[in-house]
């Protein structure tokens, strides 16, 4: 596998022409060597113990044909939410629909392809790209970085308040020449800016898709970012996501991860609180059916004092599905007066569904308030009987209870069309 991969990398280098030098390419080479020495995670790797994905990917992916994402006029306007009142960007078939970028003209925001940005915003890209996405820690991040070429670059100017959400629509069309996608985002939110970004994965094609996404977000002082991931792709698809968020003083981030479909989905959400008085919220919801497998690994790193983090993840696991949750909270020695909360709750709808949940708090400071809780169980029989005794059918009663279960996450969604879609989807799924 590694030999084939290196061959792909050489082909890639040849295509880079003059840009195969410099800082970025150095990162690529480091990433390739990091991946080559480690390969995909093995089942004995603690971080991937419950999600043994490596072997499956080794078999499924054509390593001789790994291609970087390209600029390309791709059409994809028929995706879910395409008609929402939002700023739309389409990423199709390993290609960004640059047409959609050119048409954007919103004050206070630049949305470019990453490669274009590396020239136009050379300084910013060089100082931030690859700085947060650690290729030594996660082999998927390494593989992504090794072949990074194109992606989405978003820069929100100082003080700009972007009213409309930005939707990054990820999909594929029938001209796809590979089943393996790697996409990359670099999002820089300057001080005092407000922005909402939605990554929407909704395409469902007959061929199984394997995708490996990496995003880096830098949130400036006093900036506010709402960052949504909406994962509703095909039920046979593999989806790996690594997101790295770096927060500066007084900033507020709300990160939402909704997983409604997928064969194996693994999300690594990493938030680093670099300066004081930051607030980080993480809301997660996964509703899994058949033999779907959804794994959320989150890590929030309190590096300094007086920050707040709050995390609520909820899962409904049906059929033979499996949910995995690992929540790390690091409170460094200097991070006094930290407030950190974490909760993971799962409902198992069948005897064959399962959940593995592991809170992992590492606290080196002594004046902090931290708590965590996790529960896994079935629906409450007493509540079910109560509802049924009023004439409500068993299936409606279950739907009501499950809806109530997810409500405190669903109600946190601040975007109406997304809230309504997920709300309706919950009713349709659960009734």
């Amino acid at each position: 596998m590694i030999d084939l991969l290196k061959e792909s990398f050489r082909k890639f280098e040849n295509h880079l022409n003059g840009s195969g030098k410099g800082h970025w390419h150095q990162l690529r080479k480091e990433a390739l060597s990091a991946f080559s020495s480690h390969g995909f995670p093995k089942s004995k790797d603690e971080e991937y113990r419950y999600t043994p994905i490596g072997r499956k990917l080794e078999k499924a992916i054509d390593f001789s044909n790994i291609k970087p994402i390209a600029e390309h006029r791709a059409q994809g306007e028929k995706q879910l939410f395409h008609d929402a009142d939002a700023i739309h960007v389409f990423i199709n078939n390993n290609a960004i629909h640059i047409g959609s970028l050119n048409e954007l003209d919103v004050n206070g925001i630049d949305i470019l392809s990453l490669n274009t940005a590396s020239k136009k915003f050379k300084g910013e890209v060089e100082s931030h790209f690859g700085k947060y996405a650690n290729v030594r820690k996660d082999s998927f991040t390494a593989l992504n970085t090794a072949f990074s070429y194109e992606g989405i670059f978003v820069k929100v100017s100082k003080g700009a308040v972007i009213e409309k959400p930005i939707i990054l629509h990820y999909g594929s069309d029938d001209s796809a020449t590979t089943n393996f996608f790697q996409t990359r985002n670099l999002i820089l939110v300057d001080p005092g800016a407000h922005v909402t970004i939605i990554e929407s994965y909704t395409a469902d094609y007959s061929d199984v898709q394997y995708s490996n996404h990496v995003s880096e977000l830098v949130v400036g002082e006093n900036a506010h970012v709402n960052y949504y991931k909406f994962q509703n792709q095909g039920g046979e698809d593999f989806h790996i996501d690594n997101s790295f968020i770096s927060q500066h003083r007084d900033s507020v981030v709300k990160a939402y991860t909704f997983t409604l479909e997928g064969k194996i989905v693994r999300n690594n959400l990493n938030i680093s609180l670099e300066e004081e008085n930051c607030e980080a919220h993480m809301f997660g919801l996964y509703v899994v059916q058949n033999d779907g497998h959804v794994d959320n690994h989150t890590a929030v790193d309190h590096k300094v004092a007086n920050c707040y983090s709050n995390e609520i993840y909820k899962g409904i696991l049906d059929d033979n599905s499996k949910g995995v949750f690992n929540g790390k909270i690091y409170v460094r020695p200097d991070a006094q007066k930290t407030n950190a909360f974490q909760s993971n709750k799962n409902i198992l709808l069948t005897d064959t569904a399962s959940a593995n949940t592991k809170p992992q708090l590492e606290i080196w400071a002594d004046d902090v308030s931290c708590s965590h809780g996790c529960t896994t169980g079935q629906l409450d029989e007493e509540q079910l009987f109560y509802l049924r005794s009023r004439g409500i059918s068993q299936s409606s009663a279950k739907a009501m209870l499950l809806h109530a279960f997810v409500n405190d996450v669903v109600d946190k969604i601040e975007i109406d069309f997304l809230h309504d879609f997920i709300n309706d989807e919950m009713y349709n799924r659960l009734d």
Partner: protein
Amino acid sequence: MLKIKDLCAEIEGQQILKGINLEVHAGEVHAIMGPNGSGKSTLASVLAGREDYDVTAGEVEFLGKDIMDLAPEDRAREGIFLAFQYPVEIPGVSSNNFLRTAVNQIREYKGEEPLDAVHFLKLMREKMALVEIDQKLINRSLNDGFSGGEKKRNEIFQMAVLQPKLAILDETDSGLDIDAMRIVANGVNKLKSKDNATIVVTHYQRLLDYIVPDFVHVLYDGQIVKSGDKNLALELEEKGYDWIKAELSNPIS
């Protein structure tokens, strides 16, 4: 309306009901009294269809239909209502949505058109006034954080909205102060008609000052051992249950 014949039920292998016989007609109020552990709440639960209990023998006919094989929701749709001894809290389920779903699924079962939002709201307002319940409670999640009295009042409110033919009140009075009990009883009395019937399961006679029963039955060790009119309740209040126990162990006297 309701005919119970030799009803036996057990839970986890332990027999609780040991041959209950009871007949209730439209327009009647029956009180079922008895010491703790005699099977009163079990009887109420079995009638409502709680699945924890195994019915081992006997028949229950409601409006000419055998209901023992019906799911709890279908019994409710046929017109049976159980006011719970301990109504459960269901955070996240709005009272409004809950009741509207219940009303419309019952209507659907009967082949009636669903109530639209306007008519449903009208029904709610009317019944809220009838049972003196505060709109604020209805705006909250179902029973969520309600006091004991508020929960019981909400049971009566649901009963008013769903308009059952047979209401079974399972110790609705327990834990209520006099004012709350009066309001609950008042609600029950207002809902009474010649077409519906009420079974009041209670440990105390006091509720029966407010909801006057036509018949009083004493349940003891899984059987109805004595029946009478409202005076039986007064006698029980005065003498306790011991004389009945004594009477049973020594039938000659």
